[in-house]
């Protein structure tokens, strides 16, 4: 007998063993922390390692089944094909329900492993409790996998000769990395959650707790942001109509934890530096993770009409819903029992960084609530009355955009503000020049455009306001050393903050300019037709038959001219993926820093003519560039060496930095 035949069984077995380790990890350290028993507490780390190793084995086994075209495994048979290129075979591992849940569990084990390794400086009880909470979450997901969605289920003895292929929409580079990034974020919030619950259990919600949980939150938040941006980029070039955000419920499901996560980042800063907002921070940590679970539920239960809602099974939805309710109910119950009722003694005045961060938090939470209402309202109404409806993008735009404008306005004031109290005269001195420069620059830029547009003027102003206020603050902090020498002396978390804010400004400009200045035409083009759109001329030269590895296609040729000069040669395609006989539009895109040219083929018409969609989208790339900057900002902040300092120095630190860093750091 060949050993290779048993590899899927090995994977299944490893999954079950990982569950056993998760049970050990969940119970022994918790009881150990309760009884102050070192031996029991010390079981947490090895259990976390064991769980990680066995999930790694399990994941590798499933990948092996895909790479070797083992179609006796039902999941492989449904989502792969021998003709599929090897890199898509790897991404097909998480291309559907079972595999993506295995990836979820694997990433969770990875985060737990990282906590076990990098948190040696944590007090023993704290680490024990954190690992235990993560073990409990892991039990939930592993049970879900093993009971309802086993990826290693076999089709025996009559296994298919070849697989049904990966959904062609997912055969794309963006989809290779979008789910892992997104899951890194979703699952990463479980660390912030575990820290918050552990602190509640231990009854110690202090500055040290906030400092431990900050770098983890920053990394998770950065990954989630990057994952969302990748998804948006993928939708832009792959769905074939050039939209980048649809307020689709599944998109909203990923945006909500990000928004709350953003609020959490800022609130953690206040808790660490000033010892304020503790209860609020805990609630945000619980909310961020609960919303991540809600996202998983919405995507995986099939209750939604969405591009992500592939055929699915309602019992799975019920399992996640129950799990979600247990998590939320248990953590809120614990919160009401253990939340510190003692009032903070430190106060702050109205003009202080605390106030501005509070405004940030309120705006972000209100924005999340708005998105939540718009997303869940149709579902709730449907289950109560059976009425079918959907909430359109105008609802979201009408609410979200003004809130973000308020946020950006507050941001400029917030970065220059000082902790506790800021003199008005000083603030005017700081922000007066920023206001003048932003107003002048935005007016100038708006006048350069052909037509006046209020939204564009506003976004120029707000972005300039954010950027210049940041620069003004950096200038102020480096005054004594000279700008460049001074910047090198600034902490990474401070620089990361400014990078993140810069990303928001860049993204906002991209969103508004591409929404207001895009031009688009759907039309019939015969061979040789030339169409003028904006400053560009598009010439259609027909479409030819073309064969890819697992698809056949009509490959069009469109030349784009600016004046008489050819500036781009685009090949939009209409593909037919053979196995699922599924048509797909591949857009032809000429990307640019200030504009994208976007061409997609519709249907073939008589005499070689085609229905064609032509688009010119100014500054659309800035949307993802901004998101990238924001994500990098988060990662840079998490690299700050002060998070890795030893406990012994930290206590002293906490006392002195509260004074010193209050002026240099957020």
């Amino acid at each position, binding site marked *: 007998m060949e050993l290779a035949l048993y590899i899927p069984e090995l994977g299944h077995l490893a999954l079950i063993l990982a569950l056993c380790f998760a049970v050990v990890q969940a119970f022994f350290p918790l009881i150990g922390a309760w009884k102050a028993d070192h031996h029991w507490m010390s079981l947490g780390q090895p259990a976390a390692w064991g769980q990680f190793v066995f999930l790694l084995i399990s994941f590798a086994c499933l990948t092996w089944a895909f790479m070797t075209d083992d179609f006796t495994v039902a999941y492989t048979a449904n989502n792969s094909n021998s003709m599929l290129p090897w890199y898509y075979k790897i991404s097909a591992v998480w291309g559907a329900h079972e595999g993506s849940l295995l990836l979820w569990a694997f990433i969770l084990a990875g985060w737990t492993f990282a906590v076990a390794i990098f948190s040696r400086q944590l007090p023993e009880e704290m680490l024990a409790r954190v690992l235990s909470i993560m073990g409990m979450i892991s039990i939930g997901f592993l049970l879900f996998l093993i009971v309802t969605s086993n990826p290693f289920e076999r089709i025996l003895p009559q296994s298919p000769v070849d697989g049904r292929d990966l959904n062609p929409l997912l055969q794309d580079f963006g989809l290779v990395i979008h789910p892992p990034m997104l899951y890194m974020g979703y699952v990463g919030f479980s660390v912030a959650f575990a820290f918050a619950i552990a602190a509640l259990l231990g009854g110690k919600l202090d500055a040290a707790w906030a400092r431990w949980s900050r770098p983890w939150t920053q990394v998770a938040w950065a990954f989630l942001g990057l994952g969302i941006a990748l998804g948006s980029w993928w939708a832009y070039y792959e769905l074939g109509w050039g939209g980048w955000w649809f307020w689709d419920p599944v998109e909203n499901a990923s945006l909500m934890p990000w928004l709350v996560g953003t609020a959490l980042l800022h609130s953690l800063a206040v808790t660490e530096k000033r010892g304020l907002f503790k209860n609020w921070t805990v609630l945000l940590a619980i909310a961020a993770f609960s919303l991540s679970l809600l996202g998983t539920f919405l995507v995986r239960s099939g209750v939604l*009409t969405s591009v992500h809602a592939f055929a699915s099974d309602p019992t799975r939805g019920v399992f996640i819903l129950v799990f979600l309710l247990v998590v939320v109910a248990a953590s809120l119950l614990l919160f009401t029992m253990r939340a510190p009722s003692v009032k903070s003694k430190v106060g702050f005045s*109205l003009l202080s960084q605390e106030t501005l961060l509070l405004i940030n938090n309120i705006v972000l939470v209100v924005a999340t609530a708005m998105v939540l209402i718009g997303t869940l309202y149709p579902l709730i109404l449907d289950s109560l009355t059976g009425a079918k*409806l959907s*909430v*359109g993008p105008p609802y979201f735009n009408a609410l979200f955009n003004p809130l973000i404008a308020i946020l950006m306005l507050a941001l400029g004031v917030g970065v220059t503000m000082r902790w506790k109290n800021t003199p008005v005269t000083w603030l005017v001195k700081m922000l007066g020049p920023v206001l003048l420069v932003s107003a002048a620059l935005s007016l100038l830029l708006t006048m350069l455009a052909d037509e006046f547009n209020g939204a564009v003027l506003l976004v120029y102003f707000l972005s300039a306001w954010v950027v210049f206020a940041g620069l003004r603050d950096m200038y102020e902090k480096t005054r004594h050393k000279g700008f460049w020498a001074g910047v090198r002396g600034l902490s990474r978390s401070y620089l990361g903050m400014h990078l993140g804010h810069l990303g928001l400004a860049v993204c906002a400009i991209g969103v508004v300019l591409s929404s207001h200045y895009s031009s688009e035409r759907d039309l*019939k083009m015969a061979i040789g037709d030339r169409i003028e759109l904006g400053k560009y001329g598009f010439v259609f030269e027909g479409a030819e038959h073309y064969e890819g590895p697992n698809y056949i296609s009509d490959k069009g040729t469109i030349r784009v001219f600016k004046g008489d000069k050819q500036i781009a040669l685009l090949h939009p395609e209409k593909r037919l993926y053979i196995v699922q006989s*599924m048509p797909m539009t591949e857009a032809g895109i000429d990307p640019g820093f200030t504009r994208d040219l976007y061409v997609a083929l519709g249907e073939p018409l008589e005499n070689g003519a085609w229905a064609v969609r032509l688009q010119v989208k100014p500054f659309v790339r800035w949307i993802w560039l901004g998101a990238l900057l924001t994500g990098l900002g988060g990662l840079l902040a998490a690299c700050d060496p002060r998070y890795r300092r030893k406990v012994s120095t930290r206590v002293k630190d906490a006392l002195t930095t509260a004074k010193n860093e209050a002026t240099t750091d957020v």
Partner: protein
Amino acid sequence: MNPVRKKRLTIILAIVLGIAATLGLGLYALQENINLFYTPTEIMNGQAPQDARIRAGGLVKEGSVQRNEDALTVTFVVTDGDADVTISYRGILPDLFREGQGIVALGRLNAERVLVSDEVLAKHDENYMPPEVGDALAKTGMLKHYEESAKGAK
């Protein structure tokens, strides 16, 4: 009232007012932007409003897709088994738009009860049925029929 309490009260009042205003605006915006779903039977019975943006859906009837002269205006008929609705759409149809497929269209009904649509949603999975359409078909008993024929085709 002492000054600290007065300040606190002002802050709390400001927050409450702010949240109330946003909530009010939010609910108003929600009211304005709800698109109700109607089945072909409901539309033919005159239950759907004219000139409001609605969603309608069903199976695209075999042989009903017609292109106009300029080639980008398409009309087709969707059915739930009991009643039919004609939908007209200008633009490029989604990849998975096919006869016999379940689709959802967004648009406004005109006086002839033709849905003038600006957005057609067809989903990217051959097994996927939009939940609204599935329910509409279940009401008329056509869902069973559809599922059996889909199984037969495989």
